[in-house]
């Protein structure tokens, strides 16, 4: 529940410089290389020097044994504000929240928020087996199916409880593939048919091949600064109307049917002064389509359990009634590790500054971006969301 105190507005703070380093399926380069590319692109576009970046937030699964500190020396940064944000799919919005308050308080002026991961041939397997203590002790020894098996259980339970069908999840995936057709670096470059989705090989029942993201190497980045700073550098920015963040919500739910958004969703909309019908497009965290469906419910677009109906009664393509994951989401573009947590944020920023990489969302003025992540044991622990708006 909200604390009762009125949260401080983000007025005067913007997010700018959406950067994507094109994804590759496998890379022999290190995470440090990918993060370095993103940082380089930021400074190049902004015509900044390294010394102009006085705040740095990093998210990466494969940058070990380094953390953010080691990277300052690696990249030649000397920031007065530093954060390492290992929250997976929630990393982007959490980085945004941290950086915005730092800039607001004057603790930093130009915060580079970077996320990226490499993908060696054994990266995925190694990550799964050492993901968290609870995963090591209580998940991985059970079939080692990874997140696919864990979310299969969540999906199965959701289907049993609310009557969702595979066809409903198919609709989400198919629309996202359509939205990705014009994204040059998308891992999945073709449209998807219902037939292909339904007959795809099973990974962990009821999850099949096209319910799963493709792990790859890549990086995403952005900068948070004051509105006047961005203007002086001629950088188009977006306004932050509200944000929420929650970890380990509803711990007593036997299985995950809702994320922490449900606890804080009222605050998200009231702080922004908007209602669900007021946003023009939505980026959900799509590690699996069932989680996107939960986000529709928990973020206020429909009630709990009405996710299937909501999907059936809307079109989710960029030209549809509910444009969703407008660059195709991870399910189409691929999941470059922690960069997946920035993907929706960076795409929202592009659409809201009229610089999409792919197809344009008509009348893109306000967007809800949602993050989710870290399946520590049997459920995703972190949930977060932000409402962004075009700078008038």
């Amino acid at each position, binding site marked *: 529940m909200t604390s009762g105190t009125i949260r401080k507005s983000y007025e005067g703070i913007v997010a700018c410089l959406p950067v994507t380093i094109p994804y590759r399926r496998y890379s022999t380069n290190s995470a440090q290389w990918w993060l370095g590319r993103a940082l380089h692109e930021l400074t190049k576009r902004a015509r900044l020097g390294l010394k102009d970046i006085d705040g740095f937030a990093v998210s990466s699964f494969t940058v070990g044994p380094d953390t953010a500190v080691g990277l300052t020396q690696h990249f030649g940064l000397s920031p007065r504000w530093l954060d390492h944000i290992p929250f997976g799919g929630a990393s982007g919005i959490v980085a945004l929240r941290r950086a915005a308050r730092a800039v607001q308080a004057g603790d930093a002026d130009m915060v580079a928020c970077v996320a990226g991961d490499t993908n060696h041939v054994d990266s*995925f*397997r190694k990550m*799964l*087996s050492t993901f968290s*203590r*609870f995963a*090591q*002790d*209580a*998940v*991985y*020894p*059970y*079939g*080692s*199916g*990874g997140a*696919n*098996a*864990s979310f*299969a*259980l*969540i999906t*199965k*339970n959701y289907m*049993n409880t609310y009557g969702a069908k595979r066809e409903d999840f198919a609709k989400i995936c198919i629309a996202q593939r359509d939205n990705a057709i014009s994204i040059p670096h998308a891992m999945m470059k073709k449209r998807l048919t219902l037939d292909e989705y339904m007959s795809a*090989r*099973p*990974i*962990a*029942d*009821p*999850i099949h091949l096209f319910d799963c993201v493709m792990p790859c190497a890549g990086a995403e980045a952005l900068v948070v600064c004051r509105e006047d700073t961005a203007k002086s550098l001629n950088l188009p920015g977006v306004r932050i109307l509200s944000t929420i963040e929650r970890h380990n919500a509803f*711990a007593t739910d*036997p*299985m995950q049917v809702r994320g922490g958004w449900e606890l804080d969703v009222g605050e998200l909309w009231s702080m922004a002064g908007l209602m669900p019908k007021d946003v023009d497009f939505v980026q959900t965290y799509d590690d699996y389509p069932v989680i996107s469906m939960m986000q529709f419910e928990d973020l206020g677009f429909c009630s709990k359990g009405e996710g299937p109906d909501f999907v059936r009664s809307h079109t989710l393509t960029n030209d549809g009634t509910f444009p969703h994951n407008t660059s195709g989401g991870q399910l189409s573009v691929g999941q470059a590790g922690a960069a997946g947590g920035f993907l929706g944020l960076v795409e929202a920023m592009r659409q809201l500054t009229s610089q999409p990489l792919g197809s344009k969302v008509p009348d893109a003025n306000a967007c809800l971006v949602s993050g989710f992540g870290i399946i520590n*044991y*049997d459920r995703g622990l972190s949930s977060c969301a932000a409402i962004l708006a075009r700078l008038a």
Partner: protein
Amino acid sequence: MTEPLVRPKRKNPLKRTRLPLSPQGVRSRTAHGLTAAAAEGRFALQVCLDCNTVTYPPRDACPSCLSARLPFRDVDCGGTLIAETTVQTSTDPYFRERTPWRVGTVKLDAGPVIVAHLHGDAVEGERVRLQLKLDKSGSAIAMALPEKDTENMADDVHLREMTCDPKFRRILITDGRNTVGQAMAKAFSDAGASIIFVGIADAWKPFPGLGDLRKIEHVEIVPLDVTDTESVTEQAEQNGARIDIVVNTAEHIRAGGVVDRHGLTVAREEIDVRYLGLTRLAQAFGPILRFRGADGVNSAAAFVNLLSVHALMNWPAYGSYSATEAACLSAAQCMRAELRPGGVKVLNVFFGPLDTEWFQTVPPPKVTPAALANAVVRALQQGVEDAFVGDVAEDIRQRLAVNPKALEREMAT
């Protein structure tokens, strides 16, 4: 419905043997509290001493009250299987070659939610009971079984990965000259073993029971003397590749202490039969058992040590014997680590005085050879690692857990 296990066909000698793989066995130290429970066939979870919350996965602070007092206690193993999935593909080599593999989420009556392996007869939405078992890595896992026993339940392929069931396996009983060895042959025959090799040393010395031994179904008498390296090596060379479970029944039980004994010859015999005998068996059979740990339905499964419970705490009346048993226990712990890469279990079965001739003057309760043999078979069927048979063994185990020094004094009176 579990398909009953089919007796495996003769192995094709020209076919490559599938090598053993292991699921990930890394666990936090606290999680090995589950391993301790699984080793003895108990179902125990952490129960907060300060607020009684039962918590899982294993952790170091109570999620209700942050207490650090979270000992493992036996809890009710009943629950409901809320959701299941069948893993069809895995990055882990062990599971990759064993898919499809079912796992599910169980909501325990005791409180926590547990991701568990599923027995084939565990049905989504229905009641189950959980058991903690040791998987091939030697670490504990939870498995959901149907609430009531079902037909051919032990034959479930995934359950059999966690157990050392003698059914359709080939056994070596190292010494059939004594009543324990003879009872062991009968018990394994009844448990569905396909061959039971029984080792006899010094065939020129007659002993009672040979006739009855020959009458037991599937028994094959072989020459074997655990005090003779060449004899043990020869037996392993001839039959090692078709022995799946070794049960070491060689014994040398004599009363007598360490100070209060005259001469070394009996101590030497004790060491030679028990400790060196174990070492010979380990060197001769260990490598082939380890190699065949994943070799089909009748894969190599276990090495069984019969140990006096006084391996854990010396009984001065049988002090030299106790010390030798302690040496065997330590050797068995070493063997456990050495055989683990093959997924082969070392089962230690502890017993108090036996109802056999060398414990003749010891008052009851004593363990009969038949009771010991049945306990060994059961322990293998359950896949436990440490079993305590009989009242005295259980009594000693409990006293050791509370105050070893008091027990040390008590054993000397």
